[in-house]
């Protein structure tokens, strides 16, 4: 039964291969349509690129504002022993605290 199915399917495919769709009419003028599409895609991309350039000053101002805000709104650095230990980089302050040189 399975062999018969294979045979029927093979016959169908063989017949279908003999009826390839004629694409001649669809191909007519294809180069022109493609050239128009490439030109329109390129134009669209150029427009998007121009918009990005136009937005550069806006983004620059935002970044500048955030930088200034973070500089002027930062809390003063702590000067106690715990903070020095946590930060781990204030070695001289740590020595001062341990030797009693600061903090009265």
């Amino acid at each position, binding site marked *: *039964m*399975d062999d*018969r*199915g*294979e045979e*029927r*399917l093979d*016959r*169908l*495919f063989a*017949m*279908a*291969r*003999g*009826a*390839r*769709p004629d*694409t001649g*009419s*669809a*191909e007519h003028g*294809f*180069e022109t*349509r*493609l*050239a128009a*599409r*490439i030109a329109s*895609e390129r134009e669209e991309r150029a427009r998007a690129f121009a918009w990005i350039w136009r937005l550069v000053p806006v983004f620059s101002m935002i970044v500048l504002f955030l930088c200034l805000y973070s500089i002027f709104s930062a809390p003063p650095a702590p000067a106690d022993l715990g903070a020095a230990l946590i930060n781990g980089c204030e070695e001289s302050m740590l020595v001062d605290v341990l030797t009693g040189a600061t903090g009265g």
Partner: protein
Amino acid sequence: MDAPTDEDLIEATLKGDGEGFATLVHRYKRKVFRLAANFARDRFELDDVCQDVFLKAYENLGKFRNDAPFEHWLTRIAVNTCYDLLRKRQRDCERVPLEDGPSSPADRHAEDALSAQEAREWLDRALSRLKPEDRLVITLFELEEKTVHEVARLTGWSEGNVKVRLFRARKALKGMLGVDDG
């Protein structure tokens, strides 16, 4: 004077010569149209798919390496674009009911009575009910007469995977023909 080679035309296109690409399109459009016609439902969809293929080729021409002929590279792009079309169609849940098509060969008990055109139409409808991967593989193998190795190379899938998909597709088609597979 000899016709310019594909490599010459690619080089000219990359240097900004639009005529070079137009010649490449003219040279290979028939092959791309014939392949895409196996998957497109009408001439508008066929035109869109073929434009997508050549647009992708144009945009990626700089990535083309001369380790394989341009024709193979373009066919790979065409196969991938057709596969994308089938997947998009599946996402949109578009399936043609088999009953809406020409009478099934199973009803006639004799495929000899079918014309080549009728066989093609029935197969088109039957293939549209398969999974995109299975349809792609069996179309390339049976209708485009590619070998398993070629199908694997064009799709980027392993030969084992291609064979499994072929088996599944044939089994499903036999089911649609009304053939008991057991």
